């Protein structure tokens, strides 16, 4: 899917640990971890609302749409180093 989750970036910017975020938004650390790695099928508006509130950001700071060719390019860039 072309949706990239930048939650780890936002957590780093706010110098917050996953555990603390999980506690403050009321979901398990496991779910935060799955969300960070993008291994989920969806995010509830309710969860997104709480994340934005705690991290003081917009949904767009956490979720990003990346076109397929763009993703291929960045993958190739990573491969060539």
């Amino acid at each position, binding site marked *: 899917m072309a949706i990239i989750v930048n939650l780890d970036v936002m957590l780093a910017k706010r110098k917050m640990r996953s555990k603390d975020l999980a506690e403050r938004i009321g*979901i398990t650390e496991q779910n935060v971890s799955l969300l960070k790695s993008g*291994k*989920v099928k969806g995010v509830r508006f309710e969860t997104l609302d709480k994340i934005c509130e705690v991290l003081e950001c917009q949904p767009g700071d956490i979720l990003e749409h990346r076109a397929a060719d763009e993703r291929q390019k960045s993958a190739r860039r990573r491969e060539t180093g």
Partner: protein
Amino acid sequence: MSSSNQSAEPRFDMSEVHRRVALLCHAIRWSAVAWGLWATAAVLMLFASPDRVAEHYGRVFRIDLGHLPASGYVIALTIIVLDLVLAWLIVVFVWRLFGRYLRGDIFSHEAVDEMSRAGWAGVASVAADIVARPLLAYALTLHLDASQRHHFWTGSDDLLHVLMALFIVAFAHIFRAGVEIADDNRQIV
């Protein structure tokens, strides 16, 4: 985002469902066992002697079966025992299915498989019952004149039992779709 087999922790509180059905699950499990024991006891009492078998089925067929030969008695007992084995198979599947529900294992593929097995065991049991009856009648009247041989008897309850068993099989299919939705839902945080 990528699809994954990993599941997020479910948000829906299954303990509420568990609380609502726990008593029913216990009742269904023990009723199934009671039914199995009842059926077994009835067979044991009926087949205690060939005379008792002749007397009982004589009333059912409305003929005098007279002195039942040992071969007829043994064949009849074999048919009844096979029928009883299928009945106990239903008891086992029902026990296991509702045991899963009691453990909170409701929306899982394993629970659906168990439900499907219980349904098909029910269909098999009713079908075996329908087939067993003419065989039983044939075995018990083998020593009589051909004109007195009863080969078949059935009732509207047979259809009702088939309907109920098929209902469970159909319900298992519907439940499977529910499990797939629950799987999807588990991957939404």
